[in-house]
């Protein structure tokens, strides 16, 4: 799992690459947290187009990222989710809590 990002004019784009499962979750959460804490972005977009798999371990990752972004009054959204991720987000109700582009 790789995490890369760009931050310009207060807009952070964080790109995840690989699979989000319990094995990877803690590291991903920590890296997202570090990026937000360092750049304090006004808007934070999580780009999931490079994520090939996500199970329910990803729910806490996404919710924590959203909470972190909103704690500093930023906005949070997710984009590029493939069909498998969308299905997990819909089945678990996560799709109602997080704005998906």
């Amino acid at each position, binding site marked *: 799992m790789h995490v890369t990002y760009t931050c310009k004019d207060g807009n952070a784009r964080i790109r995840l690459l690989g699979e989000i499962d*319990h094995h990877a979750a803690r590291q991903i959460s920590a890296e997202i947290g570090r990026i937000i804490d360092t750049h304090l972005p006004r808007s934070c977009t999580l780009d999931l187009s490079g994520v090939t798999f996500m*199970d329910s371990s990803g729910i*806490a990752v996404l919710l924590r990222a959203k909470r972190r972004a909103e704690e500093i009054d930023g906005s949070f959204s997710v984009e590029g989710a493939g069909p*498998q991720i969308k299905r*997990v987000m819909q089945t678990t109700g996560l799709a109602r809590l997080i704005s998906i582009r």
Partner: protein
Amino acid sequence: MKAINYISVTFPSRSANEAFARTAAACFAAQLDPTLDELGDIKTAVSEAVTNCIVHAYPDSLGKITLKGRILEGGIVEFVIRDWGRGIADVTQARMPMYTTGGEERSGMGFTIMESFMDKLRVRSSVGKGTTVVMRRRIASRSAGRD
């Protein structure tokens, strides 16, 4: 039901094996020529069951997990995920959406995903002895007008 083909996989409860187990399950199911969506459902459901063994059954130690797969008549694939760990006192409660004993890193949605993504889910557990999760999914035959 008679099995047309089967696999039996044993591995220790290391989190690195979550990816191994769900990929093995998907590879095995591939012989029924599933769609990518069906494969995604199977991978996800198996990942949830195996992660539960790693997180909940053996929270502080390494233990043994088995994943058995069978192809049954009628294009049905069955997976049985078993551990010899802590067990579940109240299975009905454990299966409820958002119920978790795993703290804030867990969502309590594992069983909900398994139930939605598979056609059948059976959970047997005994405290101190372990847990067995049986899941089945029918793969629609593509020649029957789906392709």
